[in-house]
C-alpha cells in the first residue's frame, strides 16, 4: 500500500534535494522570538491560553528541572524561548536516553527524583520509565488537538510525543558534486561509497530503529546486507557521525534532518536529501514526572511545549511539530515531509510492538556490532 502511494508520489514530485547553505545564523535560534503575551488572566501567548489564572499564579517565578536526550544546541533554542515567554527559570541536564533512564529510575527508586520533566528519544525506554512510576499524568489544554494529530498515540497518558524526528541521509557536498549526489535510498548502495558511508547503531535509539524498520519494510533485509557489504562505519551517536561527514571522513551518512541542518549551520558542507521514496519518522516521548506533577511551573512548561508557541520553535530546527496547526519543519526554503504525508513514514506504536525486536535482531545479525 505504502509502496503504491510512494510510486504515485514519485511521479508527482521531483526529487527534492535540499541544499542548506552554510550561514552564520541558527535556524530557530536567532534568539527568542517576540510574541504577543498577555498575563492579565493567566498566561496567553499569541491568543492561545497556556495556563489559566490559578495555574499561572502558582507557577510564576517558579523553576523547572528538565532531563533531556536532545542535543544541547536544540534544547537551548527551545528552552530559551520558554524562559523568554514565561519568565520561569528552567535548567536542563542532557544525557543519552539509556543513561537518563538509569538515573531517573534509580532516583525514583530512592525517592529522590530530581527532574520535573523528561524528554527522551526512545519510546520503549519511556514506557519502562512509566512502568517504574517515573512519570505522572501528562495533560495539556491542547489534548483534543494533540489526539487528533496523533501525539497522544504513545505514552498512555504518561507522556506524549513532543515532535517527530525526520531521518534521512546527507552527503558531503565537497566530496560529492551535486550532480552525482545520491538521490534515492537505492543510490546509497553504489560501490563508490564503499568505506565512506556512516550509520548509527539503532539499539536504544528510537529514531534509528524507525529508519531501519522503514528500510527493511521497503527494500527487505537485502538492503542492510548490501549496505554491510560496503563496509560502513558504524557510530554510537549521530552527532559524532555528523562530524565525520562534515570533515570528509565520510561522504554519506544516514541521519536526522535536524542534525544535517545543524551541521550546515555550523559551516559544514553537509546537504540533506529528501528522497522521493520517503523518510522515516520517530516519536519523541515527553512527559511530566511525579515530582513535576507537584510543580506548577513544570505543568506550564509542558503546556507551553505543546502549544503553538512551543511547537513553532521546532520546525526551523528541522524537527516535525506534533501539531498540524503550526508551520512544518523546514530546511532553508524547502518544507520537509510532515505527519500524514505519504513520504512521512512514522514508526507507529503498532509497528514498534510488532516489529521492533525483529528489526533490531536483523540489524544486529547483519552488522554484528553490539556483541
Amino acid at each position: 500500500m505504502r509502496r503504491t502511494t510512494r510510486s504515485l508520489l514519485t511521479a508527482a514530485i521531483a526529487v527534492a534535494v535540499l541544499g542548506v547553505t552554510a550561514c552564520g545564523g541558527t535556524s530557530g535560534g536567532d534568539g527568542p522570538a517576540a510574541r504577543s503575551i498577555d498575563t492579565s488572566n493567566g498566561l496567553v501567548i499569541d491568543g492561545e491560553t497556556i495556563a489559566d489564572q490559578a495555574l499561572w499564579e502558582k507557577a510564576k517565578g517558579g523553576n523547572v528541572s528538565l532531563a533531556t536526550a536532545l542535543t544541547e544546541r536544540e534544547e537551548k533554542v527551545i528552552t530559551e524561548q520558554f524562559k523568554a515567554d514565561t519568565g520561569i527559570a528552567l535548567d536542563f541536564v542532557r544525557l543519552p536516553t539509556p543513561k537518563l533512564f538509569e538515573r531517573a529510575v534509580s532516583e525514583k527508586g530512592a525517592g529522590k527524583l530530581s527532574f520535573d520533566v523528561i524528554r527522551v528519544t526512545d519510546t520503549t525506554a519511556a514506557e519502562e520509565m512509566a512502568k517504574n512510576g517515573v512519570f505522572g499524568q501528562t495533560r495539556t489544554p491542547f489534548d483534543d488537538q494533540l489526539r487528533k494529530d496523533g501525539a497522544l498515540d504513545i505514552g498512555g497518558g504518561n507522556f506524549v510525543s513532543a515532535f517527530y524526528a525526520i531521518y534521512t541521509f546527507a552527503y558531503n557536498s565537497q566530496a560529492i558534486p551535486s550532480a552525482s549526489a545520491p538521490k534515492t535510498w537505492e543510490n546509497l548502495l553504489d560501490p563508490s561509497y564503499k568505506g565512506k558511508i556512516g550509520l548509527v547503531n539503532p539499539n536504544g535509539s528510537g529514531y534509528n530503529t524507525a529508519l531501519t524498520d522503514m528500510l527493511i519494510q521497503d527494500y527487505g533485509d537485502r538492503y542492510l546486507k548490501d549496505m554491510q557489504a560496503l563496509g560502513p562505519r558504524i557510530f554510537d551517536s549521530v552527532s559524532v557521525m555528523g562530524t565525520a561527514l562534515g570533515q570528509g571522513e565520510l561522504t554519506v551518512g544516514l541521519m536526522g534532518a535536524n542534525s544535517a541542518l545543524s551541521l550546515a549551520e555550523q559551516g559544514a558542507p553537509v546537504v540533506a536529501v529528501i528522497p522521493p521514496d520517503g523518510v522515516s519518522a520517530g516519536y519523541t516521548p515527553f512527559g511530566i514526572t511525579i515530582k513535576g506533577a507537584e510543580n506548577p511551573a513544570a505543568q506550564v512548561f509542558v503546556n507551553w511545549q505543546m502549544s503553538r508557541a512551543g511547537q513553532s520553535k521546532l520546525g526551523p530546527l528541522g524537527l516535525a511539530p506534533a501539531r498540524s496547526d503550526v508551520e512544518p519543519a523546514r530546511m532553508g526554503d524547502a518544507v520537509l515531509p510532515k505527519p500524514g504525508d505519504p513520504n512521512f513514514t512514522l514508526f507507529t506504536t503498532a509497528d514498534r510492538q510488532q516489529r521492533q525486536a525483529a528489526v533490531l535482531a536483523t540489524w544486529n545479525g547483519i552488522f554484528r556490532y553490539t556483541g
Partner: protein
Amino acid sequence: MPSIPLLVVLAVLILVPVGLVALAAVSVDVPRPGGFTFDLTLANLASVVSGAVGSATINSLGIATAATVLAVAIGGYVAFVTARTDAPFGRAIYACGLIPMFLPSYVGALAWAMLGSPASGLLNVAFRDLGLGLEINVYSRVGLVLVCALFYAPYAFLLIHASMTMMNPDLEDAAAIHGGSRWRMLRSVTFPLALPAVLGSALLIFVLVLENFPVAQVLATPGNIETLPTYIYRMMGFFPSRGTEAAALAVVLVAFVVLLTLAQRRVLAKRSFTTVTGKGMRARRIALGRFRWLALVPVLLYFVASIVLPLGALLVTSLRTSPFMPSFSSLLRPGALDGSAFGTVFADAQFWSSTVNSVIVAVAAALGGTVLSFAVAYVVYRTSARARAQLEAISMLPLAIPALVLGMGILWTWLLIPLPLYGTLGLLVVAFLGVQMPQGLRSVAASIRSTDRDLEDSAVVHGRSRVRAVLGITVPLMKVALSSTFLLLLMLSMRELTVPLLLYTRDTTLLSVAIFDRFENGGGSQSAAAISLVYCLLMFVLAYLPRRFGQKANA
C-alpha cells in the same frame, strides 16, 4: 587500631558501590534502589565467555600491554634524563614530562583524530599538500597504543622521577668504588632501586589503558576494533542496557587486577627498597659527555607529539569556520579563519559555572585523596595492623572496575545512603575520592616504601607522639612525593568524565562534562575545540600554581 576508621571510610567510598556491582553480576535484575529482587543467576557470568568478549579481551590486553611498555619507557627515560643526568635544560625537560598530563587523554584522542584520521586528518592533508604520498591512520591498534602511551607516560614520569630524585647515592658510590662501570651501576643499583616506582606506574597505566573508554571510543570504534571498554559501553549504553552482564565482566576484570596486584607485591616483597634516610643527600647526576644534547632529542619528539601537534590541531580547528579542509591553502581564503568560537565560550555562563565547579571539586578531591592515600599507605606499609592487606585490596578495587560500571554503583550507593549529598558538589568529591584511591595509594606507596622510618621512630623513642612524629618528620621527608600525589589527583579530578556523567546536575556540571557535551554535539566544531584549549590552559595553571607557591614557601 588506626585501620578500623580507614576501613569504614573505604567501605563507604568503595566497598558498597563495588558490592552493588558484584550483586548486579549475579542478579537477574539490575539492583538499583527500589528494584532489589535478589533473584540470583550465574547466566551473566556465562555471557562473559562469549566469542565477542574474547576478541575484545585479546585486543584490550594487547593494546594495554604495548601502551604500558611504551609509556613507562617514555616516562622513565624523561625522568632519568631530568633527575639523574647533566643534560641541559633540566627544568624544561621536567616540564616536557609533566605537561602532557594537562591534556586529558579524551581531548588528546580527539586532537589526534583531527591530526591522523585517514581522509581529513591535518597531518594527512599536509602530506597531500607536500605531495609526500604518505598517509597515517590513528584509527588502528598502532594509533591507539601511541596515543595512550603519549598521554599516560606522565604517570610513569611522575612516579619514577620522585623515586629517582630521592635516591640515596651511597649505594651507587659503593658500586663505583668497587669498580663497577657506569652502565653496570645503573643496571644493578639505580634501575632496580626504581623498581617499585616502575612496577607501580606500569600497573597503574596498564589498568587505566585497559579500562579507558573515551580513547577507545574515539580511536578504536571508527577502526572497527572491539575493545573491552567499548564492548561494555555497548552493554550499558543502549536500551535495554545489559547492566548485569557488564557488571559480570567487571567482576572478572577485578579478579584479573587483584592477581596483578598480588604479583606486584610478591616481586617487591623480596627485598628492601629503602633509600631515603632523612640524612642530607642529593642524588648523583651522571655526566653524559658528548651525548648531553643528544639526550634531548627523544624528549623533544615526545613533547611535539604529545603537546605541540594536538594543541595545534585544536587551535586550527577552533579557528576554522568550516570543518572541511581540503588543503592548508584553503585556510588563506577570506573568512576561512575567525576567533569567534572563543568569544562564544567566554560569553557562556555555563562555562564559567562549570569551571568554578571543576576547580572546587578537583582541589577538594585532591586534598582529601592525598590525606586518605597517605593514611592508608602509612597503615599498610608502616604498621602491623591486621587489616593491612584488606585496606590495600579495597583501595585498589576501583582501578579494576570500568568507570562506566562503577559509576552506576556509586549512583546507587549515594541514593541509598541517607546523607544530603546527592545533587551537590560534595557527592562528586566523595565519588572521586573512591574512584581515584588506587592512583593515590600507588603514588604514595612508591615513596613511603623508599622513606626510612628510623628518624620517625627515634622521635617516638624520645617522647614525641606517633602522630606528631609522622606530621613533623615523615610527611616533610615525603613532601615531593605527596605534592606529586596531590598534583596527580588534581589532574585526574579535572579530567574525570565517565563517573560525573551519571551524577551531575545542572548546578554541579563540571568542565569535562561540558566539553563532552560540546563534542557530542559535533566533535569537529569550533567551540568544542576552543573550550578544550581553554580547559588545557586551566589545567596547566592549576598544576603550575601549587609548584609556584611551593617554591615561594621554600624560598
